[in-house]
């Protein structure tokens, strides 16, 4: 089971706003709060804003982690299996939202995934397995490299 590095003693909304509480350069104001609430709403957590994260399902926790990543409006967003624990519907909701967000803000999204169904939705895909095949030496009869 994946962990999402959420803070167990904070509610959903406070986990999303956590970066603003611990980073002195970020200012927590009403606009930020509204943004955080709209993020939660977009991923289907509107009715769970004040619920403790311990009382959420795995999928819901993952969505909280995604919102927390987006709340500071990062220029590059790097996601490791962002849809890994989600059901098909929520998987598309999250991916749609991530792609919409980067498109709107003209930022970069880098995703690591094992889900090949998602690949057509990205501009550029790097297959790690093909990279490994190209770079790892293979011991053969002639002792040569596989390229």
């Amino acid at each position, binding site marked *: 089971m994946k962990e999402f*590095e959420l*803070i167990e*003693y*904070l509610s959903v909304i406070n986990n999303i706003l*956590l970066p603003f509480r*611990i*980073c*002195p350069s*970020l200012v927590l104001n009403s606009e930020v709060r509204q943004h955080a609430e709209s993020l939660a709403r977009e991923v289907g957590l509107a009715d769970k804003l004040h619920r403790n994260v311990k009382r959420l399902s795995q999928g819901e926790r993952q969505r909280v982690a995604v919102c927390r990543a987006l709340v*500071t409006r990062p220029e590059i967003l790097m996601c490791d299996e962002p849809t890994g624990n989600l059901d098909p519907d929520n998987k598309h909701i999250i991916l749609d939202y991530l792609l919409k967000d980067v498109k709107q803000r003209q930022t970069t999204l880098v995703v690591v995934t094992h889900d090949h169904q998602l690949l057509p939705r990205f501009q550029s895909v790097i297959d790690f397995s093909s990279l490994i095949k190209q770079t790892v030496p293979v011991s053969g009869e002639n002792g040569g490299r596989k390229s």
Partner: protein
Amino acid sequence: MRDILFMVLQYLSFHKVKTTILVLSISLILYLPTGLKIVVEQSAKSLTSRAEATPLILGAKGSPLELVLNSLYFDSEVPEAMPYEEYTRISRYDLALSIPLHSRFKAGQFPIIGTTLDYFDYRNLALSEGKAMSFLGDCVLGEKAARKMGVHAGDYLMSSPENVFNLAGEYPLKMHIAGVFNATGSPDDEAVFVDIKTAWVIEGLAHGHQDLSKPEATAGVLRQEGNVVIGNASVKQYNEITPENMGSFHFHGDPEGFPITAIIAVPNDERSSTLLRGKYLGDEENVQILKPVEVMSELLETIISIQNYIVVAMIVVGLSTLATMVLVFLLSLRIRQREIQTMHKIGGARGRIAAILASEILAVLIIGTIISLVLTLLTAQFGPAILERLLLG
């Protein structure tokens, strides 16, 4: 700062049990030594003030502490009784104002104190209702005793038998409440004052019954020997003294030999005090004369020396508890390493994270200190009364 406080509040309120235990530990570590010191000091002051207001106590030889505690606070065990003739003797010396005390019986939970009207003047007891006792069987109540029993002047009050199985001993006496005193904040507030003779009636040394010479009492006559009429068991004895039957009450024996538990002696001056004490120094004396303040000082010295041992023990326990708490905080930090790393990863400033963690500890210390201060203030307000009650039974 607001964000730090927010995070601290969230953490502490989420871990309620852990926080409560830590806060209570801090409170108790800080409160117990100071609370104990305040209680002992204030109680010492309160106990000493009544002892200082009572220059000398005369009583049968035995435990000085028991005699002083019983005579001043109407509590503790009943001391050995001495004959009333000791009162006659000390009065004859004319060196002091002497006030006899008989403190043995109770009405409910309140002590019945047999004495004379001089006691009221000496203790500056003023009536809030009714009047002082003027007849045999009258009593005057302290403010607290009247309030707790819900009685007023004009009502009646029964004395309690010492032992329900003592059929041959004292019988309950129905006393008329003549008056109630104002509150004084002293043990007098909880006492039921009666005339010394009324105390002897309760003790069974005096009684009243039907006049056997009257025609209506013929059934109670066993036999007549000359002028002496001997009654049988059916003779009606009175358990209440009324104007009608008061004349039938009489003492059996010489009142000089009747018991009293103490005599308060207020010497005319320092010289009289010295002379008076000198008169009771002989080995053949069956009575002792004491300065209550000296007896109470000895008691308080003992209490204070015990208190010092307790404080040292508390400090040692407190230090070991503090060490355990430091360990709890360190272990907590270790358990929270992942949380701390997460905060770092999502952009948390090292200083801000450290401030949040430090503030959590600080908050526990501050709340614990505030609670201990509140407890100390409450102790200063109510502690002496509680300790006095515990000390004196």
